[in-house]
C-alpha cells in the first residue's frame, strides 16, 4: 500500500521530467534567436584605488559573456580581467583599469562585450575608496556611533521626564510612538526598495524586501503568541515590547548606517558633518519611542543600556558593511527584516492602546492620541529634512 502511495506521488514528477526532456530535445515550437543578444552584466561595486578603478562584476544573464573593450570617459582604455574575459552565467570577477582619475570628478566606465552590448558604471565624484585599515574602520565606526547609539541614548534620557505623566498622557506618547514607527516603517521599506533595485535583476531585490518584511512580521507575532501561551500571560510585557522595538529600530538604523557608509565610500556624501548632525536629530525620537512602553513599569538601568545598544549599535555595523563590503541584496534583506520588525511593534503598541482604552471605556482615537500620532509623524518628517539631499 505504502509503495502504491509513493508511486502516486512520483508519477507527476516523472511526467514532468519527460515533458522537460522532450522540450529540451525538440524545442517548444517557438524556436527563435532573440532579436538582440540578451546579456546582463552587473557592475556591483566600483573601487577607486591609487592606480585607477576596480570593478566587481557578475554575469546574471542567460548566456556567457565575453568582455572585449573598456571605455573610460570616452576613451578606449587598457584593462585586465580576472579570472578570465569570459564569464559564465552567475560567474563573478574583477575588471582592473589603470586610470588617472581626478579627485572629485565624475567618471563613466563602459564595458563592451563581444556582441557590442554596453554596460555603464558611473562614479559620481571620484575619491579614494577607503582601504580596510584600522583607522578607517574606527572612523566609520564613529559615524555609526553618532547616527545610532548617541541619539537613542539621548532620547532615552527623556524617560524620567515622561515618567511623571498620567495614564492618558502616557497613552498619547505611545500614540506618538506609533506615528514615529509608521514613518520609520515606510522609510525603511522605501530604502530597501532603493537598495534592492541596485541588486542584479535575477535576485529580485524588491521581492526580497517584501518577503523579508512579511516573514519577519509573521514570525515575530508567532513567537510572541508562543511566549504568552508559555507564560500564561495575557498582556505583553512592556520590556518585551521595548526590546522588540529596539530590534526593529536597530535594523532600521543598520539600513541608515549602510546608506551613509556606502555614500561616503563612493564619495557621494558631500554634506559630511552636517549630515551626521541631521541623523542625530532625526534619530533622537527613536529613543523616546523605545522609552514609551516602559513608562508603566520600573526598568533597571541595565535595561536601558541594553536597549540603547540593541537599537543603536547596528548603525555602526551598517557603516562598516556599507563602507567596506556592501552587497545590495543583503542590504535589501536587512532592511526588509527591519521593516517587518517595526510593523510588528506598531501592531503590538496599537493593540495595547486599544485594549487599555477599552478597559476604561474610552475612545481609542481621542484628540490626545490623535495629536500624539500626528506629532510623531510630523517630527519624523521635519527632522528628515536634515538628512535628505
Amino acid at each position: 500500500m505504502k509503495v502504491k502511495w509513493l508511486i502516486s506521488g512520483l508519477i507527476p514528477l516523472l511526467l514532468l521530467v519527460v515533458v522537460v526532456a522532450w522540450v529540451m530535445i525538440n524545442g517548444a515550437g517557438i524556436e527563435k534567436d532573440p532579436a538582440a543578444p540578451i546579456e546582463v552584466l552587473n557592475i556591483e561595486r566600483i573601487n577607486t584605488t591609487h592606480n585607477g578603478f576596480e570593478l566587481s562584476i557578475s554575469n546574471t544573464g542567460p548566456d556567457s559573456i565575453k568582455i572585449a573593450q573598456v571605455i573610460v570617459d570616452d576613451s578606449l582604455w587598457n584593462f585586465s580581467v580576472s579570472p578570465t574575459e569570459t564569464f559564465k552565467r552567475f560567474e563573478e570577477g574583477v575588471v582592473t583599469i589603470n586610470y588617472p582619475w581626478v579627485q572629485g570628478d565624475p567618471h563613466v566606465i563602459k564595458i563592451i562585450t563581444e556582441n557590442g552590448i554596453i554596460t555603464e558604471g558611473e562614479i559620481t565624484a571620484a575619491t579614494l575608496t577607503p582601504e580596510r585599515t584600522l583607522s578607517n574602520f574606527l572612523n566609520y565606526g564613529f559615524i555609526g556611533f553618532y547616527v545610532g547609539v548617541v541619539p537613542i541614548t539621548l532620547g532615552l534620557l527623556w524617560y524620567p521626564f515622561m515618567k511623571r505623566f498620567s495614564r492618558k498622557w502616557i497613552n498619547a506618547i505611545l500614540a506618538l510612538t506609533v506615528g514615529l514607527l509608521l514613518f520609520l516603517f515606510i522609510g525603511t521599506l522605501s530604502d530597501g526598495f532603493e537598495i534592492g533595485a541596485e541588486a542584479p535583476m535575477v535576485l529580485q531585490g524588491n521581492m526580497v524586501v517584501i518577503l523579508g518584511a512579511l516573514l519577519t512580521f509573521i514570525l515575530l507575532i508567532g513567537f510572541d503568541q508562543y511566549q504568552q501561551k508559555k507564560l500564561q500571560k495575557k498582556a505583553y510585557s512592556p520590556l518585551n515590547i521595548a526590546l522588540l522595538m529596539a530590534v526593529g529600530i536597530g535594523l532600521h538604523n543598520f539600513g541608515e548606517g549602510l546608506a551613509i557608509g556606502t555614500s561616503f565610500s563612493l564619495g557621494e556624501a558631500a554634506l559630511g558633518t552636517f549630515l551626521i548632525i541631521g541623523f542625530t536629530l532625526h534619530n533622537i525620537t527613536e529613543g523616546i519611542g523605545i522609552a514609551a512602553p516602559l513608562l508603566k513599569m520600573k526598568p533597571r538601568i541595565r535595561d536601558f543600556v541594553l536597549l540603547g545598544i540593541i537599537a543603536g549599535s547596528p548603525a555602526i555595523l551598517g557603516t562598516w558593511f556599507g563602507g567596506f563590503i556592501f552587497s545590495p541584496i543583503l542590504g535589501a534583506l536587512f532592511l526588509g527584516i527591519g521593516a517587518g520588525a517595526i510593523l510588528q511593534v506598531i501592531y503590538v503598541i496599537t493593540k495595547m492602546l486599544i485594549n487599555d482604552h477599552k478597559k476604561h471605556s474610552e475612545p481609542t482615537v481621542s484628540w490626545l492620541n490623535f495629536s500624539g500620532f500626528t506629532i510623531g509623524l510630523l517630527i519624523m518628517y521635519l527632522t528628515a529634512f536634515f538628512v535628505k539631499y
Partner: protein
Amino acid sequence: MSDEKNVSRRDILKLGSAGVIGLAGSYLLNTIPGLTPAIKAATPGGNKHDNMNHGNMSTDLSKSEGYLMAEKLLTTFDYGKVSTLPSGQILREYDVVAIDKEIEIAKGIKFPGWTYNGTIPGPTFRCTEGDLLRFHFTNSGSHPHSIHFHGFHPPEMDGLDPIYPGQKFTYEFEANPYGLQVYHCHVLPLARHIHKGLYGNFIIDPKKPREPALELNMVMNGYDLDLDGENELYTVNGYANAFMNHPIKIKKNQLVRIYLSNLTEFDLLNSFHLHAVFFTYYPTGRNDNPSQFTDTIMQCQGERGIIEVRFPYKGKYMFHAHVSEFAELGWMGFFEVE
C-alpha cells in the same frame, strides 16, 4: 523583576555620558576621506596622480580578423575586370554584393554590419577618367539596398531605387570627373543604411597619371553599438586603433598619397591631423581646387580629398582625428618612417 532598581536621574545622566564620548569622536570625523571631498579637486599636482598610468599605449600586436580587413583596405584597389570596347574605350566591370556580416570593429567586438563585399568600408573602386564602368550589384542582404555613386551619371544610375534582397542591378556610366569620389547606399532610412557599413571610396584617376607614390586608402567612420544615435567607436578603415598597434611602414622622403574620406554618421565632422610634418590637401582630389598646406583638415560627412606628404625624418609620426574624443575612441595611428 523583584530586585529591580528604579532609574534615578543620576543614572540617566550616566547613560547620557555615552553621548559625550561621541562628541569627542567628532574631532576624528574631519579626518575621514569621504567627508571632505570637493575642495581638493582643483588643486593641481596635489594628489598622487604622478604615479598613475597616464599613457594608454596599447601593446596588442596580434593581427586579428578586423585588423587584417583594415590593413587590406589600406592598399587594395579594385580596378575591376578590364576589357577594351570596339570604340577603344576601356570597360571596367565590378561585382558588388551586399552581404549581412559580423565585422570585428575593435579587438573582440563584433558589429552586425551591412556590407559591400564583406568589409566595412566597402572595396575601393578605381578607374580612369572616361572609362565605361559597369557595377553588377547583387543584393544578398536582408534589406533593400542600392549603390549611390558621387560623380557624373544619368539620373537613372543614381542609386535612389532600392534593389530588393535577391535582386540584381547593373549601374553603368562613364567615369567622370576625375578625383576622389565616394559611394554609399541610398535606401531610406539613410542614416541606418549608411551607418551599418554600406559605403566606400571610389577613385577616378586623371587621364594624365599622378606622380608615382605610395598610395593609401583611408575611410573615416564611426560605430554606434547601442543604436542611441551616438557613436561609441571611431576608426579608419573599420577597425579601431588598427594602425596604432601596427604602424604603416614608409620610406624616408617617399611621396605618400592618401585618399581620405569621411563617412562618419551621427557626428557632424571628422578630421585628420598629422604630427611633425605638413601635407598638401586637394579637396575632392582635384588639382584645380584650391589646395591647402597644413597639418589638420576637416571633412563633413561625404567630404573627401587627397593628401600628399613626404616625411623628412625617420621615426614614428602619429596621425589621428583632431577631435580628441574620436582619437581616443579608436581613430589614431602611426606612420613609421624608415
